[in-house]
């Protein structure tokens, strides 16, 4: 081990081989395939698959849904987490709850999606409770909360996963930024609890957690398992749409899948590199 440790260039070479090289190969092949220059049934240089993706509307609807779902999930989870931390900041630092809030993080996305399906589907637990309470007369009366075009089930699953994570994040920031002391100072200067929260605590929490919120937003946009189980047939979130087109028997759909993959990568990379460039140092130092 110590031998490898000496090899600076071997280390950096390995890093490039396992990070940059696969990405470059993947994007390169996807570009060639989407332009008809590689793969089964390669027809020679053409941009028709790109035109089909860019003008067809399916990709844009899919990107729009992914963006909407990520925005709603992060927004709802953020508000819930902020409310929980502002209401009782000390409760999340020690005691039983501080351990319990880590538990949802041990559930894989697929399991969360499965549980949400069993809760919110027409034959799910909530629907059964509604029937028992006389609110519905059967499965058909229950609203479509899963596999719906609004992505309600997907958002519910992501909110369940993100809220505890944000509570942990905000509670740690509350402590490390000594926001309790700032709140006391604001109170001494005559601020009400609401003013102190709105003008002091929340702005600091949001500013400090901004890189993490951006990364989580991108994570939700690219999520696969949850929309696969809880999403509708149309529109589909970008990851699901890409894989569905890739696995179709129609060979004309496969180049489109690669075009969508490249477009998505370019879209999120441009956004993320721009936003994270100035924050990578800060984020890595939290280790």
């Amino acid at each position: 081990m110590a031998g490898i440790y000496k090899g600076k260039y071997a280390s950096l070479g390995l890093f490039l081989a396992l990070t940059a090289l696969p990405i470059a190969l993947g994007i390169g092949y996807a570009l060639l395939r989407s332009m008809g220059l590689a793969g089964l049934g390669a027809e020679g240089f053409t941009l028709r698959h790109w035109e089909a993706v860019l003008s067809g509307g399916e990709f844009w609807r899919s990107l729009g849904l992914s963006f909407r779902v990520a925005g709603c999930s992060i927004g709802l989870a953020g508000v819930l987490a902020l409310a929980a931390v502002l209401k009782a900041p000390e409760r999340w630092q020690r005691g039983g709850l501080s351990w319990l809030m880590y538990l949802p993080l041990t559930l894989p996305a697929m399991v969360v999606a499965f549980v949400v399906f069993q809760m919110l589907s027409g034959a799910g637990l909530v629907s059964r409770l509604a029937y028992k309470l006389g609110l519905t007369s059967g499965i058909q009366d229950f609203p479509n909360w899963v596999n719906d075009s609004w992505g309600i089930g997907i958002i519910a699953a992501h909110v369940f996963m993100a809220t505890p994570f944000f509570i942990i994040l905000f509670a740690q920031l509350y402590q490390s930024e000594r926001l309790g002391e700032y709140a006391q100072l604001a109170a001494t200067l005559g601020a009400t609890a609401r003013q102190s929260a709105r003008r002091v605590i929340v702005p600091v929490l949001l500013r400090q957690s901004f890189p993490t919120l951006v990364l989580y937003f991108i994570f939700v946009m690219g999520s696969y398992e949850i929309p696969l189980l809880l999403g509708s047939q149309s529109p589909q979130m970008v990851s699901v749409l890409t894989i569905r087109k890739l696995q179709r028997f129609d060979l004309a759909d496969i180049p489109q899948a690669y075009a969508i993959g490249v477009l998505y990568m370019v879209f999120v990379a441009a956004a993320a590199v721009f936003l994270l460039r100035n924050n990578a140092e800060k984020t890595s130092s939290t280790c």
Partner: protein
Amino acid sequence: MLKTMLKYTFAGAVLFPFALLLVFSFGQNWRFPALFPALWTMDNWQLLLTSQSDLAQSLLRSLSISAGIATAATGLGFITAKHIAYHPWRQQWLTLAYLPYIFAPVILAATLQFFFLRLGLAGNVPGVLFAQLLIAYPFGVIFFTGFWNDRMRAMEQLSATLGGNKRQTFLRVLLPAAQGALLVCFFQAFLISWFEYGLTTLIGIGKVQTLTVKVFQYIGEANIFHAALASLLLALPPAGLLWVNKQVLFKTS
């Protein structure tokens, strides 16, 4: 009053999925509008103990893959991170490490599937291991970049001043100092692999049946009781690791 309500609401919401999975894992026949399964049985759990059981094999396969990935990602990440942390282009290197996550592992796997097929790495465990390493190794690097700070560099210099060679410094100074961080990274890389579905199913082309693949298969077959059991098996090891992880975090802090 409100704080107590908040506490119980949160605790209930957190524990509910585990309770639901536990109930289903012992149940059979859940017809609308019953709130609970009509039959309670150990049959689902006995499936695990059956020799040649698919589920037991998937559990062992997932454990082996995740342990292998966690070991490789932690070891390689620890070493690579040192060179990146002290590199003048540290920030640029780190940006590269974030890319597999930003691009979404499943989309990255889709673009790489051709190469895995060509290299004979599709549909087998070595291929899945290599594919998961592409996700877990950058995490290890990101994780340890913060560890290699000025304090560690000063400790290395002190060890050299006192006559220690590089090997001794590594084995007797740096490794013991990194013990807690190594353990935490191991657990988290284990979880990355343990939770992985999209990339595993694409590169494994459905042949490498890890637990997540099995859960999806059961859901597809509308076998919610086996799906619940497999889900519980997926959730329990991370919950155990979390407990150990938190003990280590508390100790190190």
